[in-house]
């Protein structure tokens, strides 16, 4: 009889860490000045979600380039997993941003450069999945979607970092502002760093799960074919 592997302990550390981050976000960090009520507390969720989306799109690029070099379908599965999570976290960042916009500016959507650029980015990566779904052959799908992912990534820094800085925006200063400094109260900064670490951990977990699941599927298909 084979011994079953024990579940890892680290998800429980992540569970406790994120619970602590949530507590700290609402009850440890002070209310930010210059914002309506407690609305600025959304920064502890919105910024990490946006960070994870950028991280995921970077992982998508690396995995796509690896696929184009090695032609290993596991790399394609890695690229797809990263893009999927990037899309999910982009949607979450858009939703939390809209909630903030409603409180601060009275409307969920203001056609602000930040809002428009994230909407375009969502469409760019939604097209990646439309492309994947339209090609039944594994190798061809992987090849075309990896090439598309490289092109899609070129738009990402432009849409996330350049466009919102060129045009006047309602969006509050980014963490590292235009003057190159961080103007954030120290407790808020601590909580934000904790949230960034927690969300990065959650991304790593979800990404690993997605890739493991895809790897099992690939092995099954390969054994069925042979």
């Amino acid at each position, binding site marked *: 009889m084979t011994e079953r*592997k024990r579940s*890892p302990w680290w*998800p429980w550390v992540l569970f406790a860490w994120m619970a602590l981050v949530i507590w700290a*976000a609402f009850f440890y960090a002070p209310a930010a000045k210059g914002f309506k009520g407690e609305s600025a507390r959304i920064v502890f969720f919105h910024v990490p979600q946006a960070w994870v989306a950028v991280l995921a799109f970077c992982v998508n690029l690396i995995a796509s380039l690896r696929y184009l070099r090695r032609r290993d379908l596991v790399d394609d599965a890695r690229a797809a997993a990263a893009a999927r999570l990037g899309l999910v976290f982009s949607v979450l960042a858009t939703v939390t941003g809209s909630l903030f916009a409603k409180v601060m500016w009275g409307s969920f959507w203001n056609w602000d450069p930040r809002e428009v650029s994230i909407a375009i980015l969502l469409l760019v990566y939604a097209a990646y999945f439309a492309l994947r779904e339209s090609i039944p052959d594994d190798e061809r799908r992987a090849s075309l979607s990896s090439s598309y992912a490289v092109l899609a990534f070129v738009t990402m820094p432009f849409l996330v970092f350049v466009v919102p800085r060129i045009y006047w925006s309602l969006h509050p200063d980014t963490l590292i502002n235009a003057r190159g400094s961080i103007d954030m109260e120290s407790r808020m900064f601590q909580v934000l760093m904790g949230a960034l670490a927690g969300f990065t951990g959650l991304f790593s*977990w979800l990404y690993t*799960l997605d890739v*493991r699941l895809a790897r099992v599927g690939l092995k099954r298909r390969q054994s069925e074919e042979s």
Partner: protein
Amino acid sequence: MPGPESLVWVAAVTVVIWIGVFFYCLALDRRVRRLEEGE
């Protein structure tokens, strides 16, 4: 402007969402482990 009471509510909803996400991931982790063991 939300008062301290509504802040507790928002925190509680966030915790509930986190618990849901966490246990979903944990269940998925176990399922993937079972599939890997069945290979």
